[in-house]
């Protein structure tokens, strides 16, 4: 299967579902990078370039949503979740409007642009806003389904998308049972440990599961594509059935997937947990693949974390 970035799958999904006249798309001078240009070509009258002014874009999108529109607002994750944070909170989330913030270039896999453009805090930030729901798909097929789901589900969403082309995890298009908001997907069954991953760390974790198998360890792998509402049921089940959990995210280990899983665990069914992610540091320039190694987001790092929690479990 050819690789595709989730940002590209997003642009294609906008075109695919774009015949719904309620859909309007806003961008902040990054339409070629966010792939909203695909929608722009197909539906120019419903695509609005707002220039390099992300705060205004989020509030304009909110105003549009009060007129019965489903407003998709796209820019890089760093600007969507941090530059325009308060607009997302006060203009879109407080009135609970149909604003779908689809943020691309999340995480360190942005690569060469470096730390100023590598958003590693967005999951934590967006998760903390009432009414907001947070989706982080791992591949093209699940991105397509995620976009369809957020069109069908009223209210604000944050969808985290990547720059890097990634392998498919699901079938080319997937089917409805493969994406349900708030329902983790079990990618591999296992009983010794559970790896809970999101975004492109799902692919890294699939490789980790194979490495663990060679060591005689059966790891369960969950694709936690919805960070909020988090699938507490799947987490509790994993805790009870495997007794040890590793979370893996291309994000600070504080407040994101690891934080959400820790909250669900400690309130319901505590077990050993190891968080794999950025260890409260900024990224830097480099090839995405090199950065994943530098920041210990490789399959062998996930394996090491799994072995650590399994050993502690005793």
């Amino acid at each position: 299967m050819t690789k595709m970035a989730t940002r590209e799958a997003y642009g294609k999904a906008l075109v695919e579902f774009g015949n719904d006249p309620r859909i309007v798309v806003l961008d902040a001078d990054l339409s070629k990078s966010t792939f909203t240009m695909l929608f722009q070509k197909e539906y120019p009258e419903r695509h609005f370039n707002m220039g390099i002014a992300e705060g205004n874009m989020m509030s304009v999108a909110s105003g549009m949503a009060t007129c019965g529109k489903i407003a998709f607002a796209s820019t890089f994750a760093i600007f969507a979740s941090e530059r325009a944070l308060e607009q997302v909170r006060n203009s879109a989330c407080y009135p609970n409007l149909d604003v779908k913030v689809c943020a691309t270039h999340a995480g360190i896999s942005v690569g060469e642009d470096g730390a100023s453009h590598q958003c590693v805090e967005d999951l934590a930030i967006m998760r903390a806003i009432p009414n907001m729901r947070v989706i982080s798909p791992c591949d093209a097929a699940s991105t397509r389904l995620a976009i369809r789901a957020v069109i069908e589900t009223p209210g604000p969403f944050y969808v985290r998308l990547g720059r890097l082309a990634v392998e498919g995890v699901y079938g080319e298009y997937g089917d409805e049972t493969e994406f349900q908001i708030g329902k983790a997907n079990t990618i591999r069954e296992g009983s010794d440990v559970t790896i809970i991953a999101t975004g492109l760390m799902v692919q890294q974790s699939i490789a980790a599961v194979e490495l663990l198998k060679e060591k005689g360890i059966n790891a369960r792998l969950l694709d936690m594509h919805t960070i909020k509402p988090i699938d507490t049921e799947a987490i509790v089940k994993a805790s009870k059935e495997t007794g040890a959990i590793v979370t893996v995210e291309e994000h600070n280990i504080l407040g994101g997937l690891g934080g959400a899983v820790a909250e669900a665990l400690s309130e319901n069914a505590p077990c050993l947990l190891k968080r794999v992610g950025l260890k409260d540091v900024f990224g830097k320039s480099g090839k995405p693949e090199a950065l994943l190694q530098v920041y210990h987001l490789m399959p062998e790092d996930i394996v090491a974390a799994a072995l650590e929690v399994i050993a502690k479990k005793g």
Partner: protein
Amino acid sequence: MEKSKEKELKVFAGHMRKLIIEAVFSAQSGHPGGSLSCTDILAYLYGEKMRINTSDPTETDRDRFVLSKGHCAPALYAALSQRGFFSKVAIKDFRKCGSMLQGHPCRACIPGVDMSTGSLGQGISTAVGMALMGKLDKKDYRVFSILGDGELQEGQVWEALMSAAHYKLDNLTAFIDFNGLQIDGKTADVMNLGSIADKVRAFGWNTVEIDGHDFQQIEAAVAEAESKKGMPTMIVSKTHKGKGVSFMEDQAGWHGKAPNQEQYDAAMVELDAALAALEVEV
């Protein structure tokens, strides 16, 4: 404007001012100064101009209003309750726990409020979004907004103005409630705005400068805005903070302070006297 209509609007505004004082006094919290300065503009919009339907507040073809200076919610609530969107009795519960009348306008909980505001700079952007959709959907509704002059210090306002001019939103009319004061003092001292009209004009807007307490001028400016094609209009409205309550007028100290019992009584006597004078006016 007919003299009788002007008198009618003065009465509407007079009752609004009483409701504003009532709200802030009952809550012992809120923003009387700026509410009183934008009262006459709101009285014109809600008492005369806007196409709204109290029995269907979210009607698709209605005119829209966004109070970008959201802290002046008492003025908006006074206008809405006068028009019958909700009972005037509710005003006494302003800012109280359990009341729908939140400290700043809340779209989700108050009938007739088109947008939640309060964080300065964002309201005008949302008004731009509404006006853009009016164009997209080929609707003839108009979008109105009121900004504070202090609010212009927020960078987002200028992003919004730029985008409204870029998209030629001649269905958008905004007012600047130019009372010259903000919390810490005169806008000129806190952060000088220079010539507001010149700046707004340079951002591609048609601008009109008026006395924001003169209904004849307000009406003429709104009519000009409506006839101006291809660009949005900003009505720079010179106003007095605290207008109508003499001890509050032009005092920055009354930006966000509630009157005590004595001050409340004095304000009500003055506002009642103004209304009484109107009733005898020919």
